[in-house]
């Protein structure tokens, strides 16, 4: 394709091709500090393309494709090309990756142990992970957490964090502006701005972490903690996994082990400060 970039996020080597320079330049900026191994073949191919040749220039709209294509997926305007690239990368991982059990969850690590947070969009899992990652935690990722079916360790997928709406200002106030991507206003998911993870999180992206705490956050309402049984955690995580069914018995074994060995809680919190206080308190219990 006309424009091309290679990016390695955690264990996944991407090859991203685009009909336009813009999305590739934006990715090159966000992922400039990530390790590069240009000799390594790509695991996943992403394509950002115009459905018709003239749509490159005339009301340019970005279609998402690659190894896996979702029929009928709506294109995005070129001004949101970076969002299209990010969605396309997520899609290829969600549908194609088989080495690990994929959890739609954010994760941070401390002392080689992982805190995994799973929740719907809007639960605040990305924001909590981003804020914790600015403290004394290692950010593992805000979208996917990978669990090794053989050993049970969690592995990082530290793509650029996708900050949404109110979270943008909250995080922007604490980080070097050079670590923020362009503001993508009015996207189908609201306002979006990407945060480049700290250098130490990128350097350590291949280091495994033992799952130590599972949280299911929900933003809004009074601060509260509710212990969660293995069964409920299991069912919620099957729903949060994009490849649980495809992995068959290995997926079942990995998930069973995860919920048996890892304490799980649902938490509600009115604001980020309260959320972080709850997390730290539960971690102090769990990590003993």
């Amino acid at each position: 394709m006309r424009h091309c970039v290679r990016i390695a996020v955690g264990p996944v080597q991407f090859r991203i091709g685009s009909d336009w320079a813009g999305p590739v330049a934006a990715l090159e900026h966000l992922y400039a500090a990530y390790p590069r191994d240009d000799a390594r073949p790509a695991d996943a191919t992403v394509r950002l393309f115009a459905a018709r040749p003239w749509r490159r220039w005339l009301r340019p709209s970005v279609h998402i494709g690659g190894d896996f294509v979702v029929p009928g997926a709506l294109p995005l305007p070129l001004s949101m090309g970076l969002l299209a690239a990010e969605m396309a990368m997520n899609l290829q991982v969600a549908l194609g990756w088989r080495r690990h059990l994929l959890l739609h969850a954010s994760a941070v690590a401390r002392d080689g142990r992982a805190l995994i947070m799973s929740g719907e969009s809007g639960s605040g899992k990305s924001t909590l992970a981003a804020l914790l990652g600015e403290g004394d935690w290692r950010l593992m990722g805000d979208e996917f957490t990978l669990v090794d079916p053989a050993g049970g360790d969690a592995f990082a997928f530290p793509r650029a964090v996708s900050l949404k709406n109110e979270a943008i200002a909250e995080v922007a106030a604490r980080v070097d502006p050079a670590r923020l991507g362009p503001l993508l206003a009015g996207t189908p998911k609201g306002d979006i701005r990407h945060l480049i993870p700290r250098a130490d999180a990128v350097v350590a992206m291949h280091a495994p972490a033992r799952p130590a705490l599972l949280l299911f956050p929900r933003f809004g309402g009074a601060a509260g903690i509710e212990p969660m049984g293995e069964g409920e955690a299991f069912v919620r995580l099957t729903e949060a996994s994009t490849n649980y069914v495809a992995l068959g018995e290995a997926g079942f074994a990995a998930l069973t082990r995860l919920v048996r060995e890892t304490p799980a809680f649902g938490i509600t919190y009115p604001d980020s400060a309260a959320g972080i206080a709850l997390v730290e308190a539960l971690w102090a219990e769990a990590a003993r």
Partner: protein
Amino acid sequence: MSAIATFIDLLAGRGDPATLAPRDWDGVIGVARSEAMLATLAHRLKGAALPPAVATLFADQRAAAEVAQAQALWEAEMARRALAPVGIEFVLLKGAAYAAAGMSCAAGRQIGDLDILVLATDIRRAENALLKAGWEWVKSDPYDDHYYRAHMHELPPMIHSGRDRMIDVHHTILPKTHRITPDALALVSDAVTSGGGFAVLQSADMAVHCAAHMLADGDLQGGLRNLWDFHLMTRDFAAADAGFWGQLDGRADMHGLQGAVHRAARLSRDLYGAALPGGWDRQEPADAWFRRRLLARDDWGRVKQPLLEQAFYIRSHWLRMPPAMLAKHLWTKWRKR
């Protein structure tokens, strides 16, 4: 060399994976994924000297394909449990049949929907039994539903509500409106029992169906995979029985599919290096169009000749139904867009 040519050479055993530059693998893997053949390639190159990242990816693919095949055969078992109590026997078709029979083309082969063949007289009862056992209709469109029932060789697709898996129930192997009418009764009555206990088509019929599906019915989407199936099964059948090619000729003639079967054989020779016996080993100028269609993918896995793709799409419809009916069908479909 283009990625798709490299990919085919690797499958055919003509290419040495050690000579590939790192960048070459991108294209080969991209093409293989687009053809739904990455796990097939992974099996073909098992044990070869590969870059570490490729070897790991291929190991993932082999493991995933093994799980997917177990799941596909489980789905076949679910269909058996739904249909056996009402006395309906069925024949497994395509991917699930190859897996059940432990054939070499099953190694790493992706299996989509469960395809089964029943006697035309059993089709209504099969439908009711499956609906009772938890399958439900995918399409609710009355025109599509009518179209399937009046003109197709299968029921409208059904999906199982609990397991989210599709089943296609066939009563023959080509649409009723197709210019060619295979002998469906012979297909079912001459079926054989596989090692896995499921009925599958007898060897020659299996190759006939494979060729028909690729060349007489479809628009050559996924053609490389179907051709790979055809190549490996005819090679293995002929190795086990010296009279196989003669039997294949006879069965193909009986079903009216000699043209498709011979073309499949020539294409598997041209692309995968199949050795053909005398009488089969001919040249046919029109094959060039089929080779071009099969090879029309660029290094990013995209179909690179849209006009050729469109032409084969129109051809598939042309074969499927008479012109007046085709016009009416396209008109209805167009109005519903």
